[in-house]
């Protein structure tokens, strides 16, 4: 493994920021740390950079232990949320700074700066000062600056969260393209699940200093390991349920018997949380194998090509959101309409109940609007 963290722990006073962190990343892999504020993702990143020293555990790059190496000798590149460009230096000087510290000859520095300016599509901006650039441009310069020293690992700490939505999207694609082009091992910290899903080879979901799940975007999204992951990632609908028959994967919601595709881990009779993906739900009776729920429409949101309908399920205090494609010839349901919803057993995930999961943002606030 190229970048390897094992048993990393960090404590600030009484507060344990990171409990026990393990990660193995292959060379060229793009790994995201995803989680809410204060989950320990940034602290972990800062330990890789050398700004914090771990209390326990080891950090290795290409087999070399770097946990105690000073930050200025680690040769990892870092991009900060606030850009952190040096305001007294031109763009070119900012990019060349690391090379200057390494006593690279001036001519070579110049060539490398030109190369990087080309890479970030700002070939003419070398003489400008940071305050003359927009936020997006500044962050591209910061990326170039971090890459200039040909770091072994690239670290990005919420690089897009200070930018506005449109630039965030385009810069996201640019970062991914540059990363692929250079094949550089990258760790990306974010609290935005969409960013993590679209960028990463692998995602580490964190909460309260612990890893909740590590997996590919598809694994994280389609098979969340915990209720926290289900809530935090994507737009899953969550419903309270009781396990009636664990072996055959049967649960009860609002007096209705529903089937999952496989056996349930939780014992029969225990309560559980059921997750439904909105894109798997259809209006109507569905196929013969389908699970069904009844409810009334509480809200209809027109999102362009998609119409999102929220349905209050009868008998439980829960709202289920589903997406239908916009059909100009068919009027969407109106608020108050009674609807029957159907979904296949594969779309139903039974999550183990985590009573101490702590406060978790509801799916509505995290749904991409």
């Amino acid at each position, binding site marked *: 493994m190229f970048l390897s963290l094992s048993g990393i722990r960090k404590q600030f006073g009484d507060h344990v920021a990171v409990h026990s962190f393990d990660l193995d990343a292959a060379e060229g892999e793009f790994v995201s740390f995803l989680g809410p*504020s204060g989950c*320990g*993702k940034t*602290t972990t990143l800062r330990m890789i950079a050398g*700004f*914090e020293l771990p209390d326990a555990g080891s950090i290795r790059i290409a087999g070399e232990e770097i946990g105690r190496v000073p930050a200025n000798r680690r040769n990892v590149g870092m991009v900060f949320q606030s850009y952190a460009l040096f305001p007294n230096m031109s763009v070119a000087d900012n990019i060349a700074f690391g090379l200057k510290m390494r006593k690279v000859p001036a001519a070579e520095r110049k060539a490398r700066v030109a190369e990087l300016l080309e890479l970030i599509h700002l070939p003419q901006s070398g003489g400008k000062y940071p305050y003359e650039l927009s936020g997006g441009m500044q962050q591209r310069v910061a990326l170039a600056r971090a890459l200039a020293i040909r770091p072994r690992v690239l670290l990005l700490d919420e690089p897009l969260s200070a930018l506005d939505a449109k630039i965030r999207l385009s810069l996201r694609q640019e970062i991914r393209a540059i990363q692929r082009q250079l094949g550089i091992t990258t760790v990306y910290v974010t609290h935005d699940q969409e960013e993590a899903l679209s960028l990463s080879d692998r995602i580490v979901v964190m909460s309260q200093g612990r890893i909740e799940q590590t997996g590919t975007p598809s694994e994280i999204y389609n098979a969340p390991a915990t209720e926290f992951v289900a809530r935090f990632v994507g737009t899953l609908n969550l419903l309270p349920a009781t396990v009636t028959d664990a072996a055959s994967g049967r649960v009860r919601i609002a007096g209705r018997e529903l089937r999952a595709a496989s056996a349930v881990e939780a014992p029969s009779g225990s309560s559980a949380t059921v997750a439904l993906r909105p894109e798997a739900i259809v209006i109507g009776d569905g196929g013969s194998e389908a699970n069904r729920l009844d409810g009334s429409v509480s809200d209809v949101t027109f999102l362009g090509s998609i119409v999102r309908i929220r349905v209050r399920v009868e008998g439980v205090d829960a709202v289920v959101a589903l997406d239908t494609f916009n059909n100009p010839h068919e009027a969407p349901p109106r608020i108050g309409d009674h609807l029957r919803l159907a979904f296949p057993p594969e779309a139903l995930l039974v999550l183990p109940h985590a009573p101490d999961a702590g406060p978790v943002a509801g799916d509505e606030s995290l749904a991409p609007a």
Partner: protein
Amino acid sequence: MTAAVTAPRRRRRWGSPWAWLIFLLGVSYFVIPLIATIEFSLRAAYKDPVTGEFIRPSLAAYELVLKDPKFVGGLLTSFRIALITIAVSLLLLVPTAYWVRLKVPRARPVVELITLMPFVIPPVVLVFGLIRIYAPPPLAFLNSTFGTEAVLVGAYVVLSFPYMYRAVDTGLSTIDLRTLTEAAQSLGAGWPRVLWSVIFPNLRGALLSGAFLTLAIVMGEYTIASFMGTKTFGPYLSLLGQNKAYEPAAGSIISFAITWAAMFAIVIIGRANRGRTQPAGAP
């Protein structure tokens, strides 16, 4: 953010030795003259009325200055002039700053330029001009004690402009002037009432800071007062310094104490004010 929890890195528990060295040098420079002045003020001998012996160190110098009617008179005059200066400064600058913010924002550069001018005009130049205008007729105010004090107050108000206007303006920027004014007016209050009952109380902290700073400056002011020939504290202390040995030391210590008290008042007001506004301001 996790970052917010992060402790400063690699900070040695007791700080760097260089920092200590610089700090101690600085503190010695600041403290030694104070100690020397105190020591000097205690050198005056006290004659025991019974035995006739001379006792040193003693508080005799303090006793002398505090029994000196001119010293106490100067102190009181300075205090009175400081209070009048503060009152005039507030009455002049609060409505002006308020008016500029609310009604004539275009006048802001003009008003700011005027209030900053005392930074460029040294007191000695200001008093030069004042004397040339107010000593000869037709405006010979400086011929009477009252007229002189009036001009002195005018000069001190000008000296207070930079501090006071900034304090008031910063204070105003923290409250929603327009809404408060509209709310007060909707309840039937006229302009004077709005200023007195709504704006002044909301600016209390800022105004008190400006007021105490003005107090500190006026209490020790020498240049303008001495050229105008008023019998305030500064010129009298200067006179003492030329003619007496130990009394001026005692006088200086008293002067420092007054400045300190005024400045401490500002700090305490600042703290109390923060305590008062923070819970309301926090989300």
